[in-house]
């Protein structure tokens, strides 16, 4: 028999062990915290920009992991919801409430509601399909969003994109450089991680996992599988939207080419390489993929080759992902 990672509680540990473990965990978390707070002073502006994009992509890959890793839905359009979130923020700041400092913060609830609603609208008919068929349907949705962003010139600016999204500010304090954005983005990343952790380690996560493991058994204990799946998909959509909300003012220029299916596939790779069904997995996958492209930069044109080799080696040696859970 094997000990298991318990969702509801770790009753497998004695009190003393538990305290020790907690202590070690806090120490590690504290050190990490200090490292992340000091990071802007160690890096130059470009490197910090990479870190910021990594943060945005961490939220994106976590959002995909909710659908893919926990609820077992083959969701291949996180970039579409990322785009919807980013454009909603941009349009809100430019057209609905221009020249007010709180427009940015006010746009967050709008992003959450809009991406959540669209997530439900996609999932409701879409989840009549299963597995790969659902995956193809979501790719279709991703393309649909991309073509709307490209062709609805009157609102989205079409292929020219949405220019001049103002920087967020609190009163007169403006987030006007990479360092300030760094703190903002990683604050949101940590918040998302904490909330997601609570969600996943609670009954909701348990239900999503039970749907993933066995739909018939779940419905036999009274769980409505359709509803649980729609909830998971909508949660995923909302988190993608939140990463778009961070992305829009950070780059201040949105173009449809940021939200193609290619981006979705990149995020998918991050989740699979890092490890599905965990929180640390997608984070590590994102860090590996985005940072390795930068670290391998001196190799010039051999870079994609080495990048590909790294991915292959990881998938062969650790099919459950870099920091994924050990499966039988």
């Amino acid at each position, binding site marked *: 028999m094997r000990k*298991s990672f318990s969702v509801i*509680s770790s009753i497998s540990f004695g009190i003393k062990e538990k305290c020790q473990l907690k202590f070690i965990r806090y120490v590690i978390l504290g050190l990490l915290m200090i490292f992340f707070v000091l990071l802007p002073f160690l890096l130059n502006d470009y490197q910090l920009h990479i870190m910021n994009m990594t943060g945005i992509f961490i939220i994106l890959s976590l959002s995909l992991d909710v659908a893919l890793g926990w609820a077992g839905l083959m969701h291949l359009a996180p970039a579409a919801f990322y785009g919807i979130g980013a454009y909603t923020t941009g349009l809100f700041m430019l057209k609905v409430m221009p020249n007010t400092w709180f427009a940015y913060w006010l746009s967050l609830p709008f992003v959450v509601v809009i991406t959540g609603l669209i997530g439900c609208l996609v999932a409701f008919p879409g989840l009549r399909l299963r597995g790969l068929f659902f995956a193809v349907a979501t790719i279709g949705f991703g393309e649909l969003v991309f073509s709307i962003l490209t062709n609805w010139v009157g609102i989205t600016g079409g292929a020219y994109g949405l220019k001049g999204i103002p920087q967020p500010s609190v009163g007169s304090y403006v987030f006007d450089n990479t360092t300030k954005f760094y703190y903002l983005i990683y604050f949101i990343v940590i918040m998302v991680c904490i909330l997601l952790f609570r969600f996943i380690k609670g*009954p909701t996560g348990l239900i999503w*996992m*039970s749907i993933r493991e066995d739909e018939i*058994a779940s419905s036999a*204990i*009274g769980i409505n*599988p359709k509803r649980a799946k729609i909830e998971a998909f909508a949660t995923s959509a909302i988190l993608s939207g939140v990463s778009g909300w961070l992305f829009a003012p950070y780059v201040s220029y949105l173009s449809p080419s940021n939200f193609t299916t290619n981006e979705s596939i990149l995020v998918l790779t991050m989740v699979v390489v890092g490890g599905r069904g965990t929180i640390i997995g997608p984070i590590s996958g994102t860090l590996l993929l985005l940072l390795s492209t930068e670290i391998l930069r001196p190799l010039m044109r051999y870079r994609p080759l080495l990048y590909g080799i790294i991915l292959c080696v990881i998938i062969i040696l650790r099919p459950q992902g870099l920091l994924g859970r050990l*499966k039988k």
Partner: protein
Amino acid sequence: MCNNNLASSRVIRKVKEVITKILELQEVTKSFAGVAAVNKVNIYLKEGEILAVIGPNGAGKTTLFNLITNIYHLDYGQIYFKGRNITNYPTHLISRLGIARTFQNLRLLEGLSVLDNVFSAFYVSMKSTKISCLFHTGRYKREVEYFKQRALELLEESGIKEKASYEAGSLPYADQKLLEIARALGTEPKVLLLDEPTSGISSTESEELINYLFKLREKGLSIIVIGHHMRFIMKICDRIVVLNQGYKIAEGTPEHIQNDEGVIRAYLGGEQNV
């Protein structure tokens, strides 16, 4: 006067019968590609009764359970639960009404711990919202703690409490069977459908299972059990229904069934006479 009394007592008996029939299947029929797996079967279950459904392989026993829980949709017929027509209710609503089941080939959440498996059955009865889960409100924490204790109680009753933190898929087969029953009990059912609880477990273990089932019946549960293991079935059940090739061929007390010619013929072969 005398006549009147007799009539009223008959009415009372009739009413009582309706009340005590907690689950009733009327002429349920299901065919797969033209072959009738279950054909016009009438079965009822009284409150507090253990009913056994037996029959040779392919008799349609498991199909019957899948029809009751609407995992397969009925072609024809009606199903009543406590006098309520539940014929086309979706599976999760049937479970919420109080019909729990186990599966022949075990459908556990294998990667999760034993405790999580049982806990998942309490999800439906939890009242705290997702928002309170996000903010870890006191009420949410209390509720989780309460249901965790309930889950541990259920595990204790089924005798696998000390394995609560193990991965469900790594348990011995007999324990997995017990775990599945414990999970089914987590939904607080009125009727428990057990599909082959004795397959693949030893005779001492099945003794324990018999005691467990009697205990459950004392608590007021009505149980339908499918089984191959005749000694086990004869020991526990109050009434037996025999199916063969989708038809009900006999019904009655264990003694009656043991001497029924049609049943013996179905089991040992011979001229088909349905």
